[in-house]
């Protein structure tokens, strides 16, 4: 990932900044510049909205053939989460007991290392999910 590309997405990755359509109230993450339902009605009304970070697991999968950055964590679990704001986010599940993973599991977003460019390069941080205490 190039430095500018990562830098542009820092607010989304660190703080879950999405947008809310000022016309219909639907929340989007990652941010969109136009609401696909309201189209031109939403122009100039897509307001910033923070996704607080709490939600429920709607589906999950275990990855056994990891990407190079995830070699140390294999096998690892990816979850799709329905956030309290109504949007869906995908991320890695961490700090969990494997037998407790399931549909409807309540999770919260936490900031973790996602990877790095190289041992001398930029470190990428972003959200992952962990079970709510």
């Amino acid at each position, binding site marked *: 990932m190039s430095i500018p590309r990562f830098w542009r997405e*820092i607010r989304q990755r660190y*703080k879950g900044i999405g947008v809310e359509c000022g016309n219909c109230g639907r929340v989007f993450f990652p941010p969109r510049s136009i609401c696909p339902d309201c189209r031109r009605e939403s122009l100039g009304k897509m307001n910033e909205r923070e996704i607080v970070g709490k939600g429920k697991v709607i589906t999950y999968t275990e990855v056994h053939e990891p990407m190079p950055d995830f070699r140390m964590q294999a096998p690892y679990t990816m979850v799709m989460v329905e956030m309290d704001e109504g949007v869906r986010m995908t991320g890695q599940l*961490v*700090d969990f007991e494997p037998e407790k993973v399931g549909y409807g599991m309540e999770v919260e977003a*936490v*900031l*973790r*290392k996602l990877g790095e460019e190289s041992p001398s390069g930029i470190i990428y*941080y972003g959200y992952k999910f962990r079970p709510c*205490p």
Partner: protein
Amino acid sequence: MKTKTKVGIRGYGGYVPGFRITPREIGAVWGKDGEMMGAALGIRGKSVPAPDEDVVTISTRAARWALERSGLNGDRIGAIYVGSESHPYAVKPTSTMVGAAIGATPHMTAADYEFACKAGTAAIQTCMGLVASGMIENGIAIGADTSQGAPGDALEYSASAGGAAFVIGGERLLAEIKYTTSMTTDTPDFWRREGQTYPSHGGRFTGQPAYFKHVMGCTSKMMDELGMEPSDFAHAVFHQPNGKFPMNAAKKLGFSREQMETGLLVTRIGNTYSGAVPLGLAAILDIAEPGDNILVTSYGSGAGSDGFYIEASKNIVKVREDGVPSIQEVLRDERHIGYAEYAKYRDKIRKGG
């Protein structure tokens, strides 16, 4: 040192990674009696960060809780100082990343601190000065580490990970910081040279002329200046590189086991370096009663101590119901691992490709 206006802790939070390894596991790899080593150090286990955890992630988790507890939004924070000896970058601040993650950027000042294990309390003093002078309304001071001990070294039994964050402000205080004293000398007891992976230390030299001289010297001087005695404090927390040093210092100074036990986390989680005293203080605030006097003395090799006299305010009882987990609740998340996993997670295995 006393501030001209009232300053104190408006919010706080602490985080410790969930993996644990026991001295027995470590000793077994190096042909040592780990259980005996653990007993000698007063350590039953130490925390180990996951491979995706570092000082940025630990600091952010603690800072988010501290901010939530303070009731402030990120944009009300005028300064962030992160003290650590394991910042992930040698050049590029941890504090900017924490600032972005809690929504405090861009209108704030920030810097990273390094003073072995006392960089976190140095950050508290800096925020006190900025708040008391009226330069900022609120600041965040963090002490956090993911410390490393060289494989097979005595430090490996204790070097662990964790951190705590404090929102320092002048209003709606959970606890007032009424006084602070520092003691600083040039003492070469423990160091890490630029580019080195693991620290070096002077063995027994880290005890009497280093830890004890500064912790006891700073604490005694502060009590003299205040005209107070050990019995005036409900709780005390000293830097805790192992379970023995703080208890010995406490005994010599006249503090009891009861005064020390709440803040003594090293027996369960090891030495969290810059996180140690901040986490101990957070654990005390979790259970403190209004009016309780708390004595805090950190220690950083190189060497120096920062002492604080803190008084819990009537607001302190609110922390029990504000939804932010207490340190004891955070410590409940414990997952034990063996040396092989520990070596993998702490990047001690040479990999190909």
